[in-house]
């Protein structure tokens, strides 16, 4: 695939899942969001401001920075809590993966629907552990905090590399690159998906789709 992919792995306790995921997803999105664009004539635009906000975690010794947009936070929280529930349903020590995929829409001609072409993919692999006593939990609380700090630095390092980013769009094309549905912030188009356990079998629908595509492409 013509797409960068980064994998982050974390090992956390069940109650820390939500906060850890939020921390990482928000960190990535912080760097992949801009202020709203206000287009002027001749293809120029100005960029609105974006505030940031420090969030302290309850179950982890950790503070992260996120875009201060309630709307964005709500969307992310929803996805993460779904993931957490799904993870909880599988049993105590679940494995799961949540991925944040940035994509671009490409308009196609009539017979095809618009293509969504990913250009960056962040996969966060989560390993949930069970801890026996309070002391271990306390150690875990600090350890996870440290680990998350490392991950955040990782993320920043990756983002700092001068690599491909979609070009700044003109007004008509802004929907193909940025998610303009939010009032106060404008992240690149993204998609959050999750997968419980390490099941390698792809879903039936994707297999079917590929089969059809393959037959056509012969």
């Amino acid at each position, binding site marked *: *695939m*013509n797409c960068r992919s980064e994998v982050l792995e974390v090992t956390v306790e069940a109650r820390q899942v939500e906060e850890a995921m939020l921390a990482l997803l928000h960190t990535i999105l912080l760097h992949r969001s*801009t202020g709203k664009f206000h287009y*002027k004539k001749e293809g120029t635009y100005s960029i609105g401001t974006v505030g940031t906000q420090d969030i302290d975690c309850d179950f982890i010794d950790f503070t992260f920075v996120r875009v201060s947009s309630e709307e964005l936070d709500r969307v992310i929280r929803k996805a993460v809590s779904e993931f957490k529930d799904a993870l909880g349903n599988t049993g105590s020590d679940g494995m799961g993966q949540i991925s944040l995929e940035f994509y671009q829409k490409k308009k196609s001609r009539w*017979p095809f629907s618009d293509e969504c072409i990913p250009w960056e993919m962040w996969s966060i692999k989560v390993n949930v552990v069970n801890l026996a006593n309070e002391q271990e939990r306390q150690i875990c609380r600090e350890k996870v905090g440290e680990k998350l700090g490392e991950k955040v630095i990782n993320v920043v390092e990756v983002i700092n590399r001068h690599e*491909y980013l*979609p070009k700044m*769009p003109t*007004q008509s094309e802004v929907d193909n690159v940025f998610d303009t549905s939010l009032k106060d912030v404008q992240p690149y188009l993204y998609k959050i998906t999750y997968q419980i356990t390490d099941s390698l079998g792809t879903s039936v629908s994707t297999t079917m789709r590929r089969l059809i595509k393959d037959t*056509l492409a012969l």
Partner: protein
Amino acid sequence: MAHIDTEYQRLEASYSDSPPGEENLLMHVAEGAKSQWHHIENLDLFFQRVYNLHQKNGFTCMLMGEIFELIQLLFVVGFTVFLANCVDYDVLFANKFVNHTDSSKVTLPDAFLPTDVCSARIRHNGFVIFVLIISGVFWLHRFVKFIYNVCCYWEIRSFYINALKMTMSELPYATWQEVQARIVEIQKEHQICIHKKELTELDIYHRILRFKNYMVAMVNKSLLPVRFRLPVLGECVFYTRGLKYNFELIFFWGPGSLFENEWSLKPEYKRGGNRLELADRLASRILWIGIANLLLCPVILLWQILNAFFSYTEVIKREPGSLGARCWSLYGRCYLRHFNELDHELMSRLSKGYKAASKYMNCFLSPVLTVVAKNVAFFAGSLLAVLIALTIYDEDVLAVEHVLSSITLLGVCITVCRSFIPDKHMVFCPEQLLRVILAHIHYMPDHWQGNAHRYETRDQFSQLFQYKAVFILEELLSPVVTPIILIFCLRRKSLEIIDFFRNFTVEVIGVGDTCSFAQMDIRQHGHPAWMSEGKTEASIYQQAEDGKTELSLMHFAITNPHWQPPLETTHFISQLKERVHREATGASADTHPLSLSESEPRSLVANLLAGPPTLGSVHFGRESLTNHAAAGMSDGASALRSLSPVSSSLHLRGSLSAVHRASGLTSRAMAGSGTDARTVSSGSSAWEGQLTSLVLSEYASTEMSIHALYMHELHKQQSRADLSRHTWHRQESDESSDSIPDEVRSEPNTHSRNFPRSHTFPTTAPSPSAIPTSASATSGTSSGQERVKPQSSTGQRRHSGPTTDHFSAGGNVTRSARVPMGGWAEDGQAAPKHHEPLLEESSEDEMPPHIHKVI
């Protein structure tokens, strides 16, 4: 990317030029999607399409071709049904008389049945209905595919026009290298591939040829079951389009294949842990596909027959000789293909070798057949002459029953016979011809050299270069044979296949999973007997056979002069080029360290060039060896002196034309040709300005030919030195030649018998029982070595009881008997160092080293 679009930069900019306190202080300019070509999702498909469109000469040509193909399909089916059901043959054969009121002549429409009768006949014939439904489904599939393709290629067309700035009309005259150079150029601007700032030629080749490289490697390592030993026919190769299609279906794109998508192998296949389980799964998949093939067999068979009938009957009628003509077999194309060689490169190479190859094959016409054919042709010819004379005298002769058909039949008969009668002016010189062929096809098993005049060599060559009739026959048989091969042969190899894909897949950033052989890394896959001595760290399992890695590397470097290989590889290439160059300039051959040949005091390159007097045209006039040598020296020297890396091709052109001319002088005054060549070559450099890239690429192939010949020659001399290694490695096949004693006697060349057999030309595949099921193979290399070893060990166990006895009989004795001791000692320095330890080890254990490891 010239401009960096991160948030960071925008902030930075705001510091510099924004007066504080104003609203909308900072204006940005939207770049917009100037091009839609940045960041293409499926680059594999994209590059393949770009290549296809180039090969099909532009959009219009492709469109027309596809439309006609669809129409042809309809026509084939419709016409067949019509012929079978709607024609009253009694009328045509005049068995039944038609009563016409106006005239007594029978017209064609008279023979047609009325429509209602016709449709009734069709409706009551279940078989016809079945055929119609099947072909209808097939046609619809093709049609949908066609529509889809048109949409896709329309996009590629606009890519050519807008991004590459090439119009469709100039496309047929642009070389692929040009197109490629432009793609590399626009990557900087559009960023087609997001992983890298710059694309290399190799990346593009890797993407286009990802699966083909795997196939080439699998054929190279004899993994695919395409060679069989049949009871009556002996050893034969069966590789048809249907079989190839099935292989690709199983490995690459079919449901549940090894590949997840075009660019990546499924992760579980990259881990060695559950290889047995995966092999089981693969085996059962192969079984199912085999069964599906078996079930569909009647349909495919019917289709093949119809297709063959309509595409070939016309040709046979027009040119009956074409069945006697030959073509490169599908297996040959796979065997001869370099890694990273595009279709058109391979085809042009093989086409250049075609003439020489068919001449070579014609050398071996059976004398008995010739005598018979001559006489049959004589009698048939006299009958034909009489009939034609009679016809000329009076046309009515044609009206007599069967006269026209006998004239046609006699004509066919004579043409067939003629193909068995050799050309009167042809001279039997297979060795030279084989050299010329080698210059174009670049690969051949070691044991052919010096054995060109033998019938076995010819038989094996015919596996690569088969009769067209055989090709058609194989295609027709394919639907029946394919399921058998899948179920009984390929299934047993499933573990080996799993191991192959695990061991030989590397992930390249920006390309995805590719066959590691296609990286052309001498260190990983070099073969010590092919000049990568000391540079390679490959085990026997990892070495590509027949010097494929080295030759592919040279080929790729020569065809893509702008490609910048990794440092080590560059070193290898420049070293080799320099060696060839030095060989050409080095006048005194005796002092040269490379001239290892004991008897001939000639320079290596001169020697190899003397074989084929020219690379461009074949000339058989020279018989006298002395003249031959002198001419070869001067021609070769002048041709190669100009092989300086800078302007090699330019000068080569001049000197080659000189070579042409020189060879035209036949056997007189050869001494002058050398100077002649030099003057012409210097004169031609004035044309440099006119040379286009097309010319350059044309001469690249000549340069490659010289390198290929050089490498083969060097390999030959090197392998004389380290026979031992090969005789162990390929003992089984060596023995097959030993079992024919009279040939050895008739062979004047002392080395011929000892030549190591190529791995891709061994006898049939090893029996599956030899596959070790020990789960010790967790690491790649260790399991890899196991793969190869059983071949030799089973071979030996099959032939003789104790392996040790066999070894001393087969390997050691022949070597000491045949190779002069002096030569052996001399070659010691040139011989690979690690062979000596092998020798010692074997003498201690009395067992070839790798067999030792198995037990």
